[in-house]
C-alpha cells in the first residue's frame, strides 16, 4: 500500500508561502493542510462518509446517554415495564423478561461494546505495530522468531484461543479486552512488517543512513510517520473485529455479566427464550446495533485505505 500523498492530487496546496515562519509553525501548517487534504479525499468516499455519519451519531447517542435515558431502569428492581412487552410508544423496542426497556439496554450496551472494541483494537494494533516493526527492522533470529510467533497467532483459530484465555482469566471487561487483543494483533504485525520493509527499502531511508542517522532516528522520523496512516486504517478495521469478537464471547456466556454489552443482551435474549417467545424486539436491536457499528467502522477503515492507496480508488 502506498501511503505517500499523491503528486498532483494535492494540487490544492501548491501555492507556496514566501512568508517566513518558524519551522515548527511550518510543520503545523503543513500538518493541517495534509489533514485537510485527507479530509477532502475522504469526503469523496460516499460509503466512508456514511460510516462516519453512523459513528458520529452512535457516539453522540452513547456519550449523551445519561442525559436522555435513565440508567436505573436497567436495575431489575426499578424496571419500569411489564414482562416481555412488545414495542409500544412507551417502550420503543419493548421490554425484557424483567421489564427493562430494550432501548435503554441497547443504548447503554453501546458503551461497553464500543469501549471493549476500541481499547482492544488500540492494544492489538499497538502490539502488532511494535512487533511488526521490530521483526522488519532487526532481522536475524529475532525477526525469525517474531515472525514465527506472528504466523502462529494468525494461523490459530482465534476464537478458540480467546475463549480459553477468557475462561482462564475469568470473565470481565478487562480480560475480554486482553483476550481479544492477544488474539488479534498478529494481522497488524504482519501488515506492519511488510510495510516497514517496504519503507526501509525506500531510498530516503538509504539517504538518512548515508547522512549518518541511527536506528532511532530512522524509526521515529521516517518509518513510524509513514506507517501511521496504515496503522490507523488497520486499527479502524480492527475495531470492528474486536466488537464482533466481544459479541461472540459474550454470547457464549463469557461476557462481563454485570454489564449490558450487545452480545450480552443477545445472550440474555437467547437464555430468556426470546426465539420461542417470538420476541423479535429483544434480538433485532442489539444484533442490528452490532451490525451497524461494525459496518460503520469497516466502511470508515476501507475508505481510509482507499484514500491512502489510490490504486483502489478506481475511476470515479
Amino acid at each position: 500500500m502506498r501511503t505517500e500523498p499523491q503528486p498532483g492530487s494535492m494540487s490544492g496546496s501548491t501555492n507556496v508561502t514566501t512568508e517566513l515562519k518558524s519551522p515548527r509553525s511550518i510543520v503545523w501548517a503543513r500538518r493541517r493542510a495534509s489533514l485537510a487534504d485527507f479530509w477532502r479525499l475522504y469526503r469523496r468516499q460516499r460509503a466512508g462518509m456514511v460510516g462516519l455519519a453512523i459513528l458520529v451519531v452512535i457516539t453522540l447517542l452513547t456519550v449523551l446517554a445519561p442525559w436522555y435515558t435513565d440508567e436505573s431502569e436497567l436495575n431489575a428492581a426499578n424496571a419500569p415495564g411489564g414482562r416481555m412487552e412488545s414495542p409500544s410508544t412507551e417502550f420503543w423496542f419493548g421490554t425484557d423478561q424483567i421489564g427493562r426497556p430494550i432501548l435503554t439496554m441497547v443504548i447503554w450496551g453501546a458503551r461497553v461494546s464500543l469501549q471493549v472494541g476500541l481499547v482492544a483494537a488500540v492494544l492489538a494494533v499497538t502490539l502488532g505495530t511494535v512487533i511488526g516493526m521490530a521483526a522488519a527492522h532487526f532481522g536475524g533470529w529475532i525477526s525469525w522468531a517474531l515472525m514465527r510467533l506472528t504466523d502462529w497467532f494468525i494461523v490459530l483459530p482465534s476464537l478458540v484461543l480467546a475463549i480459553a484465555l477468557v475462561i482462564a482469566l475469568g470473565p470481565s471487561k478487562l480480560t475480554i479486552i486482553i483476550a481479544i487483543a492477544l488474539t488479534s494483533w498478529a494481522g497488524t504485525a504482519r501488515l506492519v512488517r511488510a510495510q516497514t520493509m517496504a519503507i526501509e527499502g525506500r531510498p530516503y531511508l538509504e539517504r538518512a543512513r548515508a547522512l549518518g542517522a541511527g536506528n532511532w532516528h530512522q524509526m521515529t522520523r521516517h518509518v513510524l510517520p509513514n506507517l501511521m496512516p496504515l496503522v490507523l486504517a488497520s486499527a479502524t478495521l480492527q475495531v470492528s473485529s474486536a466488537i464482533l469478537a466481544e459479541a461472540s464471547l459474550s454470547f457464549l456466556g463469557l461476557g462481563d455479566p454485570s454489564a449490558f454489552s450487545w452480545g450480552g443482551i443477545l445472550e440474555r435474549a437467547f437464555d430468556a427464550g426470546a426465539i420461542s417467545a417470538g420476541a423479535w424486539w429483544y434480538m433485532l436491536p442489539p444484533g442490528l446495533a452490532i451490525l451497524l457499528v461494525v459496518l460503520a467502522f469497516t466502511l470508515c477503515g476501507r475508505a481510509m485505505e482507499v484514500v491512502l492507496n489510490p490504486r483502489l480508488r478506481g475511476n470515479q
Partner: protein
Amino acid sequence: MTPVLEIDDLRITYRGSRGEVPAVRGISMSLEPGDTLGLAGESGCGKSTVAGAILRLLPRETQVTGRIVLDGDDVLTMSFGKLRAVRWAGASIVFQGAMHSLNPVHRIARQIAEPIVLHEGLSSDAAEKRAVELMAQVGLPAWRASSYPHQLSGGQRQRVMIAMALACSPQLIIADEATTALDVMIQAQVLALIKRLVAERNIALVMISHDLSVLADTCDRLAVMYAGKLVEDGPSHEVFAAARHPYAQALSAAFPTVGDPAERRNPHGLAGDPPDPSNLPTGCSFHPRCPVVRDDCASTSVELRRARDDWRAACLRVEEVA
C-alpha cells in the same frame, strides 16, 4: 499508396479524479507501409496516449475526438467486433515494460500463440508451432517456448514481445518505449532486431521514446511532442542535428555525442519545469521555458508550420531559425 495509419486532429482528454486532463491536443500524422516514425518528447507529453488511442485501449470514459484511420477504417467509430478484429491483426503494440506486459503465469509460446488462435483460427498446437517459428526469427531458441516470463532476461522478454507483435503479420507496429528499460548492449541488440524485421516485412513502425538519439538512429522520420502537441516533425537526422523548434533543440542537446569536444564538460539542459497538462500556459505552451521567447509567444497559439517540404515545426520563429 494508401497510408496504413492516418491520424487527423486527434484530441484526447482524460477524465479522472483530477478533473479533465487534455493529454493530446490536436495531432495529425500519416504513415505509409514501410515508414518508420519516431515519436519523442518528455514524460507526460502524451506519447503513450496516442499509442493507446490507435487501438482504442484508453479508459472508457476518456474523450477522444478526431479521426484515426487504420487501414481504411476509423478506429474511433468502428463496432467493437470489428475493432477486435483490427487489434493485433491490423496493428500491434510492443509495450514498455516487458516484465509487466507478459502474463507471468502463462508459458510464452502460449502467449505468442494466443492472438494467432484468435485471429487466424488456428488450433492452439498449430499456433504454438508458429509461435516457435516467430521466436526463432527474433533469435530465441525453440526450447524457450515452454519457459515462463520470469525465466527470461529483460532483453529476451522484449524479444518475446516483438515476436508476439509480429504474430498476426500486422501492417503497423507501435513500439512504446520498447528499449528504455534495457541495458545499453541489449538495447542495441533489440534495436537492430526491430530495424531488420521492419525492413524485411515492409511494416510501418511508430517508435516511441524519450531518447532522441535512439530514434534518430532507428527511424526515418522524427516527431517531437510537447504538452500534447507535435512541435516538430521531419527527417530524423536533420531534426536531431538541427531542430527548428527550441524544445526539440534542447531535447537533442540533452543527448551528447561522445567524442564531440563541444559537449565535453558542457552539459546542456532546459530550465524550468515540464508543463502540467491540466493547467497549460497560454499561447505557445512552451513559452515559459523557451530560451528564444518573443512577446507574442504568450498570446499566439502556434500550430505546425511548414519549414520545408518534409519538415514542419510549431514555432513562431520557424522561418527565422531556418
